[in-house]
């Protein structure tokens, strides 16, 4: 018996198969146990991590030891402002975490956290040539997404709204356009605030959603993680089911004939 109509189909990026289409960040939780519980509730199979200088004041428990075998790591180059810094950070991440996967982030402004497209493209080309599986965080711009895919990105990750803003998907039409035209999976990264927005991302055609703050800063992160899981699954199912066309007038769903009293 097939249960295909009930479950989401696996996502494949660069030959790796994911049953969950939700990727989760590990930052900003009230404590580490809540983070682990949220990871479990989300059902995610890949979590993000940052690469930072060690603290001279002593270190807390290692993130690698905490996560263990719960999920794959997707290290990021968050905060990097040049291709050069991002490439070195990616190389350090590969050594630290033993993965060639990298969420490539090259920002052009520390307040806006908006991608610097020129540097992003340059870093993508360099890292792809060096054998990395590159998932660039990018603008919601179909041309940039196409250039990144052409440069060898394994997926493209356009922002729904500014990082951490929780504004949702500010330009759903463009996200839908990107999804319709992209040769590689589209992962909605950044901006999601609640589960309906994660569902919308999937309905627009995204292959997956990456989020962090919406879960880690929710009043109840573990419950929100479960909500995001359900939202992503619902959105994926709806996307595959195909929504009805929008009409400008009512259309009765009950039969017109045999009305009582006519």
């Amino acid at each position, binding site marked *: 018996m097939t249960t295909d109509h009930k479950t989401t189909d696996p996502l494949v990026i660069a030959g790796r198969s994911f049953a969950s289409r939700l990727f989760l*960040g*590990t*930052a*900003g*939780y009230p404590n580490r146990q809540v*983070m682990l519980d949220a990871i479990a509730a989300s059902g995610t199979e890949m979590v*993000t*991590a*940052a*690469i*930072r*200088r*060690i603290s*001279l004041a002593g*270190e807390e428990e*290692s*993130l*690698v*030891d905490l996560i263990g075998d719960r999920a794959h*790591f997707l*290290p*990021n180059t*968050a905060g990097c402002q040049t291709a050069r810094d991002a490439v*070195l950070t990616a*190389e*350090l*991440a*590969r*050594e*630290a*975490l033993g993965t060639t996967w990298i969420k490539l982030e090259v920002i052009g402004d520390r307040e806006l956290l908006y991608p610097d497209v020129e540097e992003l493209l340059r870093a993508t080309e360099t890292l792809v040539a060096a054998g990395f599986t590159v998932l660039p965080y990018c603008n919601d711009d179909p041309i940039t997404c196409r250039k990144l895919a052409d440069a060898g990105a394994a997926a493209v990750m356009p922002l729904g709204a500014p*990082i*951490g803003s929780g504004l949702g998907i500010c330009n759903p039409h463009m996200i839908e356009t990107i999804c319709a035209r992209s040769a590689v999976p589209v992962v909605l990264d950044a901006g999601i605030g609640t589960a309906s927005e994660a569902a919308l991302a999937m309905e627009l055609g995204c292959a997956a959603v990456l989020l*962090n*703050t919406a879960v880690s800063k929710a009043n109840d992160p573990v419950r929100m993680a479960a909500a995001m899981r359900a939202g992503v699954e619902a959105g994926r199912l709806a996307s595959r089911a195909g929504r009805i066309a929008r009409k400008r007038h009512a259309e009765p769903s009950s039969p017109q004939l045999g009305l009582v009293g006519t």
Partner: protein
Amino acid sequence: MTESTAARVAVPETITVNGSAEPLAAETIAALLAARNIESGARGIAVALNGRVVPRTAWDRTTIAAGDAVEIVRARPGG
């Protein structure tokens, strides 16, 4: 001995670790890490010397010289 040579001798040899200058004390990357209580088997750690990653397997035999810049990083929570 010229004055400038004397001045050079008097200056202690330093390296830069994570952006901060410190006296050159450790001979190798492994020794530098050991001084910070980081074992060679520590997970989630990576080191770069002058902008190039030094693989874990080479920590023992990679020597440090005055003027070198070392980055020691680890995986942390991130989005």
